[in-house]
């Protein structure tokens, strides 16, 4: 059953950009930027790995008001981005303000809410003794990604074996 969401615009360049405006005139820009630097450029699937960012226009409030249509719109944009099944996203939950557990739980519930079994999310955490934080890194990938095994193996190789207790 379709979910109500805002209409959005899309610009298909090397950075994939989506735009939408809320009823309260808050302008969102969601960008997906290639992250070839993480796994190196010598594997073909590296070109399909991205990081995303959500930005607000300069005249929008720094902390946007809650709007029940924004989360479904972001989900629809994610699904549109993943129409190309080879794509993968690397995501990191911010742990610098010590609210990471609540933040991660919220993100996970939202992810599961909209996931119909088409996607999987693999988490790995690593402690940073210099910054005195630990990072929770996630790989989000389609279950039917033809490079799923290679990408998850590379993610495990990069982050695996270094996991810390949450």
């Amino acid at each position, binding site marked *: 059953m379709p979910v109500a969401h805002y209409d959005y615009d899309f610009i298909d360049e090397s950075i994939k950009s989506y735009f939408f405006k809320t009823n309260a005139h808050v302008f969102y820009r969601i960008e997906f930027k290639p992250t070839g630097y993480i796994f190196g450029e010598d594997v073909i699937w590296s070109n399909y790995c991205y990081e*995303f960012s*959500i930005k607000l226009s300069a005249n929008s409030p720094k902390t946007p008001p809650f709007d029940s249509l924004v989360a479904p719109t972001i989900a629809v944009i994610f*699904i549109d981005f993943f129409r190309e099944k080879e794509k993968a996203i690397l995501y*990191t939950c911010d742990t610098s303000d010590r609210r990471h557990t609540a933040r991660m739980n*919220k993100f996970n519930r939202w992810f599961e809410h*909209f996931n*119909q079994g088409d996607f999987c999310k693999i988490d790995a955490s690593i402690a940073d003794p210099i910054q005195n934080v630990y990072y929770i890194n996630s790989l989000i990938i389609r279950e039917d990604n033809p490079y799923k095994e290679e990408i998850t193996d590379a993610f495990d190789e*990069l982050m695996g074996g270094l996991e810390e207790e949450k």
Partner: protein
Amino acid sequence: METKKTSTKADRREKALQVSRRLADHYKETNRILDAVLPDLPQNSTKKSVS
């Protein structure tokens, strides 16, 4: 041999930390916005289709 093993693990850890620090910095603003816009869903919420 033992020394080489240790060094390799240290190198891997350093690479993982570098990537993690960069990603954490990149996602700081996005996390702040997600904090504000994502709903507080119950743990076992009913899934909805967006197709």
